[in-house]
């Protein structure tokens, strides 16, 4: 039975969710970090070791610099970094999405679309993905909220995986 495999996965997800929530809770309280550069891990994480041992200094790096080593096929960062970090490394900080506020709130997908473009275009771009295009479905068309899979402040998920076995690796 699948259920035996699912239980540990669910447990891990739960642990991660709780941990991620705690981290996010800190970030919520600290919009003063809004101007921090993405490569400056210590600015938010303090002394916590968030990079692997022997990792080059990232302080001055942006997303492009990360990509020099972390390609899609080699040392991929897919699923390793919360998407907010990708954004931050690309110069999109808290304020760019949440505005200047001390109480940032969840956003709807209009915000994503305002930079990333219409969902139809996205679905077109991913039409070759196997076993099926993740950006369109008989249920929601192309309009399923981005945030249901692509989380910013916690690990992304495969929302389709509730019922389907597509096994998407969600960035």
């Amino acid at each position, binding site marked *: 039975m*699948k259920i035996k495999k699912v239980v540990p996965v669910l447990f891990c997800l739960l642990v991660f969710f709780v941990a991620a929530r705690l981290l996010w809770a800190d970030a919520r309280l600290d919009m003063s970090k809004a101007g921090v550069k993405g490569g400056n891990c210590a600015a938010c994480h303090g002394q916590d070791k968030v990079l692997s041992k022997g990792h080059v200094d990232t302080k001055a790096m942006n997303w492009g610099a990360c990509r020099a080593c972390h390609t899609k096929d080699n040392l991929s960062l897919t699923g390793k970094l919360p998407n907010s970090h990708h954004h931050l490394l690309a110069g999109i900080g808290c304020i760019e999405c949440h505005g200047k506020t001390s109480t940032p*709130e969840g956003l709807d997908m209009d915000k994503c679309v305002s930079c990333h473009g219409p969902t139809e275009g996205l679905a077109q771009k991913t039409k070759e993905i196997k076993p099926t295009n993740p950006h369109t479905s*008989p*249920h929601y068309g192309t309009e399923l909220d981005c*945030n249901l899979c692509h989380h910013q402040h916690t690990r992304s998920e495969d929302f389709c995986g509730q*019922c389907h076995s597509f096994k998407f690796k969600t960035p």
Partner: protein
Amino acid sequence: MNKEKAQSGFTRRNFIKTAGGAAAVAGLAAAGLPLMSGQAQAAGDLPKKWDETYDVVVVGSGFAGLAAALEAKNGGASVLVIEKMPVHGGNSIINGGDFCAPGTKMQKEEGIEDSPELMLKDMLRAGAYINHPELAKMVAYGAKDALEWTESYLGCKYASVGFHGGHSVKRAHATAIRSGSEVVNKELAKAKEIGVKVQMRTKMERLIVDKGGRVVGVEVRKNYRFPDEKSGAAAFIKAKKAVVLGSGGFSRDVRMRMIHDPRLTDRYESTNQPGATGEAILAACKVGAMDVQMDWIQLGPWTSPDEKGFGFVPLFCERLVGYGPMINPKTGKRFFKETGNRKERADAIILLGDPVIIMGDTYAVNKQVFPHALQKGMEVGAIKKFDTLEAVAREYSIPVDAFLNEIKRWNGFVEKKKDDDLDCMIFKDAKPVAEAPFYAARLWPKVHHTMGGLVINKDAQVMSLDFNPIKGLYAAGEATGGVHGAVRLGGVAMADCIVFGRVAGKNAAAEKAWS
């Protein structure tokens, strides 16, 4: 997802948290006055301040809830739809999109003779005659109009008329995209167009009733993140006219379904979306609603433990019964009439206690199974292909000799088109299981539909424990019980939801406002 900030209205919890609150609580306790928590509420315990006010509040955004919202809005009411999940549509959006209705234009074009009388007869026979006849009649006689409403008012498209087991004729109108999303997405689009407000991630915590027992609003959690019961913030929404529950069934609520059918432990998965938990039904019971036939819980005998949700194996299994045998791997023998109804077959598998096998040879599979379903089922590993019958036995740990003998015996029945052992219906064009490769899948039932639910009358009013309608409370769809009796027939859920959703919405809008 919604920008609306939960206003911090009066809540007991917040009040109690403050120091002044604590002192006041001590005072109240000393004075012997009752204290309420969010769990136990006495009638008449109204919030001091309502955060929002609407004429009609609809709980749930599936077929029934949105149909109610549309009719209520068109009846002149201001309408809010709340949905606890992050997406709209509940089970309706993963539904197969078959809408049973009798006497339609499409049926006539295909020369199918049908009538509401016949559909009612089918529903009652399948329902073991414990359906509430006046409710079943509403659906059978209202289905055609409901279907036409989805076409003319919502713009839904139907492609063909198909057959479902237990019906006398082809009357399942398949949406063009083969999914209930065709209807529920168009309901949502129309609702937004005409000014219905729809709020996701908003969970009803309880129904609020006044001293006279009238439903006057709901306590909700806004920005709720399923299934975290502590997420979100409390808010009170006033319903000046009525609350409509279109909140669905409880197939995914293991604790609740085990109360009514203790066999249905977490060993049984469900074809339903994760939010199909029954707390809205219980919330209604807490304010005095009556429930009915809660232990009639439908399991699909055609689902596989080797894939998620509804999956592809049902499309493999249901096309093969009458062409190939169902085998108990422990004995290598058949154990139940393959063409028996859903309930009988599911019960038989549950009684065995472990998954069974459905199988067919190349002739049967090529002839009967849609290539798409076969391919997809094989891709996920739920359907397997074998060069020999011995290989089938090895894969599923079936005693080989007993299995080969049983296949021989089955083939004999197929030759003479009569099953002496279990009286399976063997179709005219069936052939002995002989042509390699062979295809097989494991079967283990999944919980599919809860026939029971709240008692309603034909005006969709929820009935109380004193047999009177609860003022200001309506319900429609799977949250209700009685329409289907013991067994819901395939394709009748859509009809049920649209018919009673619309009735509930119209009547809710016509209620006299209490404030």
